[in-house]
């Protein structure tokens, strides 16, 4: 199954990824990270298409990493 890894402590809780995910795979965790931000949490792995929109919208370089179960060119976007 596809997967989005969230580095909890790099998330600033802006929730943009939550708003852009077409499959609603990301939610706010309701928990605070070391910086005091309510970080996001990846849920619904079965729905994730590894489209990368969460990654591309996220302002933090390393907060999200998207893994897909097949390699495809990123230039398909």
């Amino acid at each position, binding site marked *: *199954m*596809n*997967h989005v890894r969230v*580095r909890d*402590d*790099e998330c*600033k*809780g*802006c*929730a*943009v990824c939550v*708003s*852009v995910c077409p499959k609603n795979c990301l939610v706010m965790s309701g928990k605070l990270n070391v*910086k005091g*931000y309510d970080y996001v949490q990846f849920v619904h792995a079965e729905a994730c298409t*590894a489209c*990368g*929109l969460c*990654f*591309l*919208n*996220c*302002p*933090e*370089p*390393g*907060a*999200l*990493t*998207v*893994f*897909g*179960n*097949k*390699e*495809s060119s*990123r230039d398909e*976007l």
Partner: protein
Amino acid sequence: MAELIQRFGKAQSFYDGYTRKGIEIETTHYCPGCGHGTIQKLIGEAIDDLGIQDRTIFLSPVGCAVFAYYYYDTGNIQCSHGRAPAVGTGVKRTVKDAVVISYQGDGDLAGIGMTEIIHAANRGEPITVFFINNAIYGMTGGQMAPTTPLGQITQTTPFGRDVARDGRPIGMVELMNALVPPVYIERCSVATSQGIIKTRKAIRKALQAQIDGIGFSFVEILSPCPTNWGMSPVKARSWMEKEMTHHFPLGLVRDTISSSTGKATSIPYPYLDDAQLVELLTGSAAVPLLKDDIPQVTHKVKIAGFGGQGVLSAGELLATCGMTEALHVSWLPSYGPEMRGGSANVSVILSDQEIGSPLVDHPEVLLAFNGPSLDLFEPKMVSGATIVVNSSIIQRQVERTDVNVYYIPATDIAKNEGLLSAANVVMVTAYLLISNALPLETLVRCIPLVLRKKSFLDTNIAIVNKTEAYVKAHPMEKQ
């Protein structure tokens, strides 16, 4: 379960950790939901995919993105406010293989840096400019920017930007489009996923145009500033989509990359050795060498007359003579806006010691070219000073009795040699002879360095000789 492959992740061109606060931290300094992070990720990804990390020189602006050099593991220069395109011009012309990315905000580029961006674009410098437009001065607390839309509330437009009071927002893409040289101009937005994908493509296209040596590329990217707009990051993006794109229409404005033959290459400068450079820059290859034995001289000289008499040139000649004798010199002109006819004076200090101030309030030497100059400075001379009077023009005598005076018809001597404008050479020659400050040979060597008209060189030398003869025939009467 099939093996998972990373499809989207942190770009290699970012540092692993950022040392801005002394220790490696892994988050940027940007506020939550800031557009800078999103755009910088797209640029980082493009640097990776285009394989240009080792060639990239990233120019950071002044503004929120000032710390980009903590993030990109590329060449970095943090530029003065708005000057990135000028810095980029220098970098690109020096390191032709460099991929120069100028990353600038709206205050930086469209405010203080308007001159630099317009002229870099108009020269068609083959660099890439990413213009991040968030319609506000972010770092300084949210003041109105050149690109703030009408009606927008900022710290300095608390009732909204008003067209009568504050003027209209500037469309930089439209301004760029008024210029001929840019090969690629597009306005994008990171408000939506669709917009981000378009931005991603525009960034790559603009960089590719530079890599291929095609020309100047400019991408304006509308970007959210949730903090200063007073909105949540998600709401800021929907406001951009609804309001900001209304003022700044998105889309490709120009793409002449495929039809462009690349920036016209200028004729390369010839290689010049040191002697040729000296010849080119000074007008003479015979520059005197500095001497080890420095004359023990300190003279505070005022040279004064009306504009066009060569007053400033006389000062330059004297200062150059001092310089080639390894003296410390200063040359401080004072003149009005008019090139001819106004009054002009110059303060020259020759000293074997370092010079603290170039001001000469109480001269030790006065070269008075005309009556008003003598009237002005005679009372200010120190006791025991030397005054050289151009007696062709100045009819009166010096009144003070505690100074040494030498009268010389400088204008007449020059006129007799057929070069009226060379009275300044007469005056300087006379001063050097009566003061013994510097040898006359030094003056002769320095004339071609200062009085560049080579056709007059022989006449000037002849005037020096005539002056020398005059001074020998009319020795100064010591007080």
